[in-house]
């Protein structure tokens, strides 16, 4: 949705309502009818070879048009679909508990994969400190949220895992950059392996005056709050 409102649609409350043009109507009809999210390319082809620029312009107009309505048009992993507005969840949720609940282990593994991808099972386990039960990855694979993403070219060539467009879709993320807090985690070095962070921290504590970055310096990090 990032590139959405390039069109010069004023952001007033009372917008002069344009009659939707034919591209817009065709995109609207196609996206309403589609059983799955559609990429710009797929939309263009479906609309008789419409160029991507026109498709994007039409999508932007539609995003704008639907921005205050009960359904909205969103981009998830480069694919577009209509969905209900989040603030109406309370109306729709009833008798609709379709989402199976994930175990805590599975949610943690999913988060680790999403924030670190691609990542091997050993790497997941080194973060969690426990072995991953057989079923945990299976459940995520079956849900279609993670996929095998090849092998890491290190001894043993372990399989590595990554998330899928369906994952982004389900959790309402336009892309992995939208993962909650990912920028902060990265900035704090919390997505780096322990060994790396340890080296940095040791180096920092060796020359304490050079780096006032005290994020992970044990010496000045253990204040007496606890006693």
């Amino acid at each position: 949705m990032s590139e959405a409102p390039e069109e010069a649609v004023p952001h007033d409350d009372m917008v002069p309502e344009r009659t939707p043009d034919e591209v817009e109507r065709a995109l609207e009809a196609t996206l309403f009818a589609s059983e799955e999210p559609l990429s710009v390319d797929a939309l263009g082809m479906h609309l008789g070879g419409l160029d991507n620029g026109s498709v994007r312009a039409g999508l932007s107009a539609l995003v704008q048009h639907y921005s205050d309505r009960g359904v909205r048009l969103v981009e998830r992993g480069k694919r577009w679909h209509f969905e209900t507005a989040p603030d109406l969840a309370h109306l729709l949720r009833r008798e609709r508990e379709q989402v199976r609940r994930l175990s805590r282990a599975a949610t943690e593994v999913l988060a680790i994969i999403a924030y670190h991808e691609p990542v091997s099972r050993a790497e997941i386990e080194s973060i969690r400190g426990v072995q991953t039960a057989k079923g945990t990855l299976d459940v995520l694979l079956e849900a279609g949220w993670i996929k095998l993403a090849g092998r890491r070219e290190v001894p043993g060539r372990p399989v590595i895992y990554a998330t899928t467009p369906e994952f982004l879709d389900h959790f309402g993320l336009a892309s992995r950059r939208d993962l909650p807090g990912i920028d902060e985690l990265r900035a704090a070095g919390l997505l780096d392996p322990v060994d790396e962070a340890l080296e940095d921290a040791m180096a920092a504590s060796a020359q304490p005056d050079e780096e006032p970055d005290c994020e992970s310096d044990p010496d000045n990090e253990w204040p007496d709050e606890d006693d």
Partner: protein
Amino acid sequence: MNENSEELPSQDLSPEDLSAKSGFMLDGENANREEPGAGGWDEEVPNPAHQGSDKLYLALDGWEGPLDLLLDLARRQKVDLRQISILALVDQYLTYIERAADLKLELAADYLVMAAWLAYLKSALLLPKKEQEDPSPEELALRLQLRLQRLGAMREAAARLMARDRIGRDIFLRGAPEGLRIDRKTLWKSDAYSLIQAYGQVKARTAPRIYHVADRPVMTLDSALDRVSAMLGVSLEWMDIREFLPPHANAELRKSALASSFVAALELARTGRAEIAQDGAFAPLRIRRLQEGSRA
């Protein structure tokens, strides 16, 4: 608490196990306990019943290994994970484990391994630092802290992820999409000429056939014999066999005539009426009438 219906595995610990497993926290590479439950669907709320130390004996099963328990204890210090006191954390953990032992709970081995390792870490941290050990206890403590931070970050991220508006729970897609369908249709094409020609071919293929064998231009051996004999009578000189061929014949007939004339010449030679000479391979073949009786 849905996951703690399973009993903790009870394990006998040998000293070797202890020393082997105590390395786990040091290098952080090996995990040594399977998480409880099959890891499938069901409970997605954050760690249950972790408040109140009186719930200890119930809650122990709910943790996914000692690191998880440590993280939870660290959280209770209610400070940033970067600010936690490792010493305080160690004490809390050891107290926890002791109380579990008092309650005669069977503890999984890795909890005990962690307890032993933490006890070692505590004493190392408290001892006056004379000799430089490698790694130093401070480094070990830092490593533990870094690991807890990372696990804590991921636990929080997981919770935030799960709390998002999710499709099928908070957000809904079109309930009855018409569906997009692409039908392939073949437009067949042909033309009248192809049709008529095809019928012609069917008829031609299935019509009764009459076979004609064409007359091929050949010179029979008999006619060649007559011809060569007659021509030999004209002269007593050597003659090239090609002079015996019909002068205006086409190539096909000439071939046949040459072959027949050659056989005729052999026949005449055999019966003593002609002689044949050739200077070398592929040289002109010459024929001459033999005088009656001259050969003998």
